[in-house]
């Protein structure tokens, strides 16, 4: 007797389940059809870092090329070196050529996105807040070399596109 009862209860549980499935079958879709639609929360995504431009000169970064971000990075994926001004012959003294001057702006600023783990420690450590997260979600490339991003070039391009 109990086994029949159990079997009936079991069958009923299946009917209930089917009912729920049926209800959701008629409910509106919740999926985002990607190439035709976009997800709504891309602006909160923190992708690879990018440079922040100066207020008056959007194409030039605030960066002072101190290299703290490169040292702090757990995976050593940032390469930054200061721009070097060519020696000024007018400054030469006693016949000695003047030394090239190390400027407080980066000449090279590259990010190897292959290695980056998006931890954000470079952003936090930057003394002049010259780094921020981009929300570049659609980052797809064909070769590994392309993931080595030139952030200076990216900033210039953004500055041009912005105007």
């Amino acid at each position: 007797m109990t086994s029949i009862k159990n079997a009936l209860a079991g069958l009923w549980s299946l009917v209930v389940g089917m009912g729920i499935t049926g209800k959701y079958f008629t409910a509106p879709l919740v999926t985002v059809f990607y190439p035709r639609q976009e997800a709504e929360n891309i602006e909160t995504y923190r992708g690879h870092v990018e440079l922040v431009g100066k207020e008056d000169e959007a194409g030039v970064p605030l960066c002072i090329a101190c290299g703290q971000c490169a040292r702090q990075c757990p995976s050593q994926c940032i390469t930054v070196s200061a721009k070097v001004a060519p020696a000024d012959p007018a400054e030469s003294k006693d016949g000695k050529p003047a030394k090239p001057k190390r400027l407080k702006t980066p000449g090279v600023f590259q990010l190897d996105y292959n290695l980056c783990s998006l931890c954000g420690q470079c952003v936090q450590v930057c003394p002049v807040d010259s780094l921020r997260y981009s929300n570049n979600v659609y980052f797809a490339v064909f070769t590994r070399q392309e993931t080595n991003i030139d952030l200076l070039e990216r900033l210039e391009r953004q500055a041009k596109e912005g105007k």
Partner: protein
Amino acid sequence: MTMSPQLSSDPSDFYSQSFSKGARENTLILNMGPQHPSTHGVLRVIVELDGEYIVRAEPVLGYIHRMHEFMGQKKTYTQYLPNMGRVDYLHATAWNWAYVGAVEQLAGIEVPERAEYIRVLTCEINRICSHLVWWGAYLLDLGAFTPILYAFEDREFLLDILQRVTGSRLTYCYFRFGGVYADVDDKFIDDTRTFIQRFRKRLKMYEALVTKNFILRKRCEDIGVLSVQTARKYGCTGPVIRGSGVPYDVRRAVPYSVYPELDFEIPTFSEGDAMARYMVRLKEMEQSLRIMEQVMDRMPDGDIQGKTPKTLKPPKGETYFAVEGARGKIGVHLVSDGSATPYRVKLRAPGYSNLSCFAELSKGTLIADAVSILGSLDLVIPEIDR
């Protein structure tokens, strides 16, 4: 599944060779994994079968071993932070917390109250995410396809919410020594409240759709019964030991952060079978919702980052800090020699201990039930292999 006849002539590896030494006559040795869907990643289990019954089983680990403990000795304290999101990708914030908490305990760093509340909030949201993935994947193992889609739909809401503060969706690197990375905003709180209301209804639906389902009960009840003694001997924690009737939860046993102020229960079931572990996790999600509500009501204003030295050099000594993750007790044993690099970081993964009892649990069961047992232990292989 790769089948191998009695391993005398085939080019098997070290583990199958050593396993086959103890084999009985007329049994079949079978490799489950490392690329078997029911092992949730790259776990390999060698089983000796007598018909469809398991005589012996031996898990073989290490297929995704990354030597996080060695990395800890090479990087500075802050540089090691992103590693923590990758140990257990399903409950990353708990691992964040275990490591950050250990360093804070050793260095004596104070955490502002608001940061503590945010930590609890994100950790509980992440716990629900983790349980949802487990729920979907477990039922997938048992042959039910649709539940994982419902689970992922709900999880998607939570990931969107977490993305607002952490910036990422899976491998969070959100906790910092003395606080958290970013503050929560009103939209975050509103979204979470909406989710809680929605999810309470969904949990009822889950129960009607799956938990009461006749077929599921047949696959879970009286399968893989784990006694309290065995669970303790193997060092099982989390939902596994709570499914055996022991109300052991680090959040209550050794309270940390603001958990002592919060009102929640520790769900326990005494049956010790796969169904009990299933029920514990479902009830835990309800409790997590309760915690989240209380945290949002009480969250004070203030800083989210305490004072921390720029180059962190904890004093010489050692410390052990444990938190409750979705799979159990996560422990970090940290030794400092006074420099900027940890001297030794030992990570205690709950899944490691939980899985170690599988060999005993699966003895004499059907191979199909072994899949159910494996699933009910809630394995995350990267965490086990570390």
